[in-house]
């Protein structure tokens, strides 16, 4: 079997599949009534994921080392990572909106790697001495997976910002747990009335809290009056769960995926630091790449803290997460434009 020909077929195939998948996801968001479109999108993503996995495996067999030594390989690895994290996010949120954002980014990465990169940069090259270490696999794969997770998380934050544009949002889900409580006292279901799922979703929509925090809403005399009215009504009605809506879900899944990327980033940076210490005697040397990894870490640490800060909830943490998308890209590619430091192996800049 000709592994090189197989690879060039697979990289073009994964680009084509991702392009189609992107169109399907966009179609399913534009025309939600068409059946099976989102299933088709998920299938496309799965095919792309398998194509890239096969591509990287072929490269691994051909070159004899874990394929993470040059730009082409790392781009496909990150594309694979995004498709993998996409499944996690889609499964957690059960929203087809995830693919609307992840598919174009993955498609762009695959297009850049398969079509824009010159052929000599796509071929496998022997490893330079500094990269001949088991730490390569550990450090680089974890870093790239963390970039993939952080990118998906940031994309969901962007999705959240788009869905909630022009609204004032009370966030759910943060490590102090401010989100576990009802907005107002509680909104009981009209148990007597037949409630269809759609009506139910509309009834449990009190996400938009124009008066700010739940606390101030209660202090507001009008709000107190409604709450009291509601609770007197409730005597005859059943207490029922207040459901999360689309914006809540997007926000929380974004938070969870970033929450997954953050430990990966931490482990990746530490693996790199330990490798650097074992290989050339310094665990931290303020090399531009590692400094930018630290900057990424600091920005997402700020995001995680912003979520638990009173008065900072709502769209502000999401803005921070969305800007994290840019920071991750600078860290991943932009730093290499500087062309300095230890991480300039196998890159064309």
């Amino acid at each position, binding site marked *: 079997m000709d592994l090189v020909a197989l690879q060039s077929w697979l990289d073009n195939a994964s680009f084509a599949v991702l392009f189609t998948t992107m169109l399907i996801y966009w179609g399913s968001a534009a025309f939600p009534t068409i059946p099976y479109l989102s299933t088709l999108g998920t299938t496309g993503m799965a095919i792309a994921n398998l194509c890239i996995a096969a591509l990287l495996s072929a490269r691994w067999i051909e070159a004899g080392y874990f394929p993470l030594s040059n730009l082409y390989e790392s781009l496909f690895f990150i594309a694979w990572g995004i498709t993998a994290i996409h499944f996690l996010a889609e499964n957690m949120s059960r929203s087809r909106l995830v693919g609307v954002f992840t598919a174009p980014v993955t498609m762009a990465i695959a297009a850049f790697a398969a079509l824009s990169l010159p052929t000599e940069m796509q071929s496998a090259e022997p490893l330079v001495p500094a990269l*001949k270490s088991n730490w390569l696999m550990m450090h680089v794969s974890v870093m790239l997976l963390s970039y993939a997770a952080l990118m998906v998380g940031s994309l969901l934050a962007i999705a959240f910002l788009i869905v909630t544009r022009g609204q004032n949002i009370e966030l759910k889900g943060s490590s102090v747990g401010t989100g576990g409580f009802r907005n107002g*006292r509680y909104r009981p279901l009209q148990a007597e009335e037949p409630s269809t799922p759609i009506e139910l979703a509309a009834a449990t929509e009190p996400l938009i809290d124009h008066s700010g925090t739940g606390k101030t809403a209660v202090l507001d005399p009008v709000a107190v009056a409604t709450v009291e009215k509601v609770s007197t009504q409730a005597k005859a009605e059943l207490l029922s769960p207040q459901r999360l809506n689309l914006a809540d879900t997007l926000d929380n899944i974004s938070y969870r995926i970033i929450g997954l990327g953050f*430990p990966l980033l931490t482990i990746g940076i530490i693996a790199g630091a330990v490798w650097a210490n074992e290989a*050339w005697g310094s665990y931290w040397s303020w090399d531009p790449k590692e400094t930018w990894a630290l900057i990424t870490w600091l920005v997402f640490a700020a995001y995680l803290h912003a979520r638990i800060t009173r008065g900072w909830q709502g769209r502000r943490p999401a803005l921070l997460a969305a800007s994290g998308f840019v920071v991750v890209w600078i860290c991943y590619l932009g730093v290499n434009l500087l062309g300095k430091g230890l991480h300039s192996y196998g890159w064309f800049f």
Partner: protein
Amino acid sequence: MTSDTPSDKLSLLWKVPQRYFQQDLLPLLADLRLAIALLLTIALFSISGTVLEQGQSTAFYQANYPEDPALFGFLTWKAILMLGLDHVYRTWWFLALLILFGSSLTACTFTRQFPALGAAKNWKFYDQSRQFQKLALSAELDNGSLDQLTPLLQQKNYRIFRDGNKLYARKGITGRIGPIVVHAAMLIILAGAILGAMTGFFAQEMVPSGQTFQIHNIFDAGPWAKSQIPTDWSVRVNRFWIDYTSEGRIDQFYSDLSVLDTQGQELQRKTIHVNEPLRHKGVTLYQADWAIAAVRFRINNSPMLQLPMSQLATEGNGRLWGTWIPTKPDLSAGVSLIAKDLQGMLLIYDMEGKLVSTVREGMSTEVNGVTLAIAEVIGSTGLQIKADPGIPLVYTGFGLLMLGVVMSYVSHSQVWALEESDRNPPDSSTPRFYVGGRTNRAQVTFERELLEILDRLSQAESVAPSVATVTELSSVS
């Protein structure tokens, strides 16, 4: 007792800073907005260090950042040197920022994280139905009981506490401990870094094959590093060589090193390469660089001669080493010998700079009427040497940090339930059953989990009329 005793005055004097610390400084340090501002400020200053060239000469900044026109109107070489932007990560203000960050971490741990963990541990049963009303995810069921709920929660790995008609269940308390571990780990890493900076040293040595050296060329040492610098042992470079691939690319650098005591006795021997250093008494020697040191040769029937080779200025176009070999006894004529690597190929140039011949290691050639036989090209190994007593501390911090961030992913979920028996429900047929819960991170997953539990509770005993409500709810998910 009067308030005039000296000890009272002293304690009063002590109370002022104590009160200032507790009422003003501590809340400020523990303020999350300060923490966020610090994180972003450190990020911002770190960026400046990656954009501006670090550690260059004054002349470099003068050439690249002239006073007129100033970059962005203010970024002149004078401004850069005055603010220390040529060595951002070692300026007093960057280090002060890190210390402030450490203080903020400590303050946050004690004023926020420990109380939050304490609150999570000191949970309470809910014994009033109104307590369920404030929870977003709570329901009032006509049927269901604690006995039915318990196995469902057990299946989901909850730890269950029961007291009569009240139930509390929780899981993921690790998610409350994780952030504390993260903060502690950050402090340990900072402490280790400070210890290393104070007591460690860095050195570089370029040593030709066959020579013995002591560590002298120290280019960076902390104020208390004296005792770390070894004086009672030296290192002999038995051999340095490079393995090349069949295409002529460097495969790996190797140095065969022996550690010798003061009598010249071998204490340790190891062949090091990139990614495989030698460690001796807290000092580590890394393979970092290489050069060509000398060439050994014969002219006609002369004894073996050795001349040093020095690196030529190529203006960044690869590395070349050269030497000049006289071919006449009065030094009036000679050839230049050029090498670019240790693969054994040497280029011979005449006095006019014309390439006249090439010769391989172990071979000979005729130049200027003499036979030049090259015996050996001697390489020198570039070693990076360091001692960092802060490493054990830093590695401990690394381990804890990884553990802490993974723990912090876990969501702390709590479920309360109450069987009401002493009240009059509207239909007065069955006592009401309240279930509610909340979690701090994974809202979406928890909602799904709790709705599934409510669903199964109502399916278990489908006699009551209001079951439909709950089944309908879960069908939305």
